């Protein structure tokens, strides 16, 4: 059916944007949980948690929005990914629940505080690992037949997805440590500078492993990247430039640039991933257009999104503005 606009492209843009927003924003607060066990002392943990407490649930709203948006615009993703990642999704939800309530309960508890410390750290780690494994599973592709997932419960858990899972843990930790550089001062900030360099090495190592590994997991990726010089090569080059910026700005003890450069590193890696798989949304068989919902459904939803999203962005900017500046000591 001929339509005046190809809404599928617009929706791909909206969902892609939501996922990126989620990764960047929930990334740095999940990163606090991953760094938590390694923090210098309990006082630092108070500050770390307080630095993200006002914004973390707004950040997670992007996950809900991405999920509901997928069901509305690309239902095939919803109905293949979730059954295929059944166990992983459960682990991610359990992780998010535990770390969510840890925000609420940790400051109220005295004798039981260590429980909520573990809930926060463990929940953040498990949720992040599960998300990284989802990315790996997407690269691997899914066993489907006639738009239905037909694989087993643990197809998603392979050496490759374990690496992508751990890679995202390192990546979120890097977002978390550069966030701390920006939001804290003194001893904790110096600790964050040191940790950032170590994490950067780790992230680059995983980056290299995945870059070499991926073309072997998916022949289509091999074809795209290694048959003739392609314009998409500038994406990993920009990512590497961001990595250099993180290194140099940490050396110069700059405060804002490490975080911005880390976001750049994520952005270009993400775009590189999309460039590898385009236009497949449920690889190896289904494209964006196969996975899309009906035109009238995408249109009905788009009208609402166009009206409401500016308000959402405005509110988020406003709340970050309210809580701008350095986070000083916690309370006891």
């Amino acid at each position, binding site marked *: 059916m001929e339509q005046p606009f190809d809404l599928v492209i617009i929706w791909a843009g909206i969902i892609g944007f939501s996922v990126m927003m989620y990764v960047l924003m929930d990334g740095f607060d999940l990163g606090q949980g991953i760094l938590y066990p390694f923090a210098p002392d309990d006082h630092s943990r108070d500050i770390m*948690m307080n630095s993200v*407490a*006002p914004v973390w649930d*707004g950040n*997670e*709203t992007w996950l*809900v*929005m991405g*999920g*509901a*948006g*997928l*069901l*509305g*615009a690309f*239902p*095939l993703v*919803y*109905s*293949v990914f*979730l*059954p*295929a990642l*059944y*166990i992983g*999704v*459960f682990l991610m*939800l359990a992780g*998010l*629940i*535990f770390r*969510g*309530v840890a*925000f*609420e*309960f940790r*400051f*109220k*508890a*005295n004798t*039981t505080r260590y429980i909520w410390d573990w809930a926060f750290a463990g929940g953040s780690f498990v949720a992040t690992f599960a998300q990284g494994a989802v990315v790996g599973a997407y690269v691997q592709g899914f066993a489907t037949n006639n738009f*239905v*997932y*037909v694989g087993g*419960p643990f197809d998603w858990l392979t050496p490759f997805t374990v690496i992508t899972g751990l890679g995202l843990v390192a990546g979120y930790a890097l977002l978390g440590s550069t966030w701390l550089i920006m939001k804290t001062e003194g001893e904790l900030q110096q600790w964050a500078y040191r940790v950032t360099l170590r994490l950067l090495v780790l992230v680059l190592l995983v980056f290299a492993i995945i870059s070499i590994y991926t073309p072997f997991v998916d022949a289509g990726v091999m074809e795209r990247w290694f048959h003739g010089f392609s314009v998409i090569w500038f994406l990993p080059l920009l990512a590497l430039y961001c990595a250099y910026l993180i290194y140099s700005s940490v050396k110069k003890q700059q405060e804002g640039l490490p975080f911005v450069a880390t976001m750049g590193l994520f952005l270009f890696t993400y775009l590189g991933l999309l460039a590898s798989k385009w236009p497949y949304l449920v690889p190896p068989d289904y494209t964006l257009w196969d996975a899309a*919902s*009906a035109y*009238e*459904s995408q249109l*009905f*939803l788009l009208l*609402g*999104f166009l009206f409401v999203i500016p*308000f959402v962005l405005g*509110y988020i900017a406003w*709340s970050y503005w309210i*809580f701008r500046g350095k986070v*000083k000591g916690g*309370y*006891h």
Partner: protein
Amino acid sequence: MELDPLLLSRIQFAFVVCFHAIFPVFTIGLASFIAVLEALSLKTGNPLWQRLSKFWIQVFAVVFGMGVVSGIVMSFQFGTNWSNFSYSTANFLGPVLSYEVITAFFLEAAFLGVLLFGRDKVPQGVHLFAAMMVALGTFISSFWILAANSLMHTPDGLVLRDGLYYVVSWRDAIFNPSFGYRFLHMAVASFLTASFVVAGVTAWFIMQKRELAANKKALSISLWLILILAPTQVLIGDFHGLNTLKHQPMKVAAMEGNWETGTGVPLLLFALPDQENQQNHFEIKIPKLASFILTHDWDGEVPGLNEVTPEMQPPVFIVFWAFRVMVAMGMLMALFGLAGLWLRRGDRYLESKPFLNGLRVMSLSPFIAVLSGWIVTETGRAPWLIYEQMTHAQGLTPSLTGGMALFTLIGYVLVYAMVFSAGVFYLMSVFRGGLETANAEQTDSDVEKAQRPISAANANLDGGL
């Protein structure tokens, strides 16, 4: 024994949704109650209204937090366990659920922070506006989710092509035949829930002679609300039942325990439905009353379960008894409303120990009524997931095994048990702290505390006062 993924998925969904439902059904009504308190405070300038509001906002913060956390799981259940259903209905379900996120969650997120933490940072009028927006957000949220649910009972405005539903008319699909009744029934249920919780907690404060001036006002308001809302709910429920009779006669037959279509059907007060033998045991009945209630004619014809084969019947025992529990709770609520009116002469409602103790117990009644009501309507739809169009078995995720479903069922039960026992424990300490703690002077350290819903409450998790 072979593990049945269908049965386990149904149990899992029922568990998660029941656990989730008790939180929003309370917060929807409580949000409006808080908005009313804020409005009275602004209009009269009487500081007692603000004392009440500060306390109930703390209760709201805790319950709302629990509702959000348990709600996230819901949105993933559709995909993990019911992927065929989700995929088939996505053209309708996807936009409707997305609209819930962007219209309701946005409003709530934006104004909850101001409601909880902004009292001293914004003018009183803005604070009242925030309270009203949070209340509006809870209603918008229930609007969309009930539209989605009602469609499963009374599908309309859709066509089915090649296994996928396409929306022909958004208006018919959203405002499907049972939607209006269900929405009203739920809205009044939410107000009743908030009224009874407020009445119960306040009765306990009054028995302890705490903050009498403020708590008397709260009790008086909640009793007036109960007096009006409880009979209204009975009336709405009756209309909802007639709507169900028209569109889902087998559900009504199961509610009535009526096995054979007939005229002059009696109303059963007690019976033990026996699905295997398609009959009841130990019936206690009032002649012709079911016919009269359902058709407004003593000899009206009422459909029976024999109109479909036994495997197409809902589980009669569950529906029959859940319905009786719901109705009994509704009648008790109406009685308490009348008792409150009777005891108002000479302010005896503030003194009568049995009445106040009764209110304390009755604070649980709306939750029982709401859960059994949902069991009636959801179980009564069985074996259909979408009435007369898709069965539970057809909607299930094809790749799901019994082992996987059992693993996550146990997992969710454990996670919820841990998280929510901590939450309930905390709620109790907010109640113990009462208006006094909620209105205590804030120390410097409180100002710096995490800007989070539950952190808005000034009580200590380790218990004690």
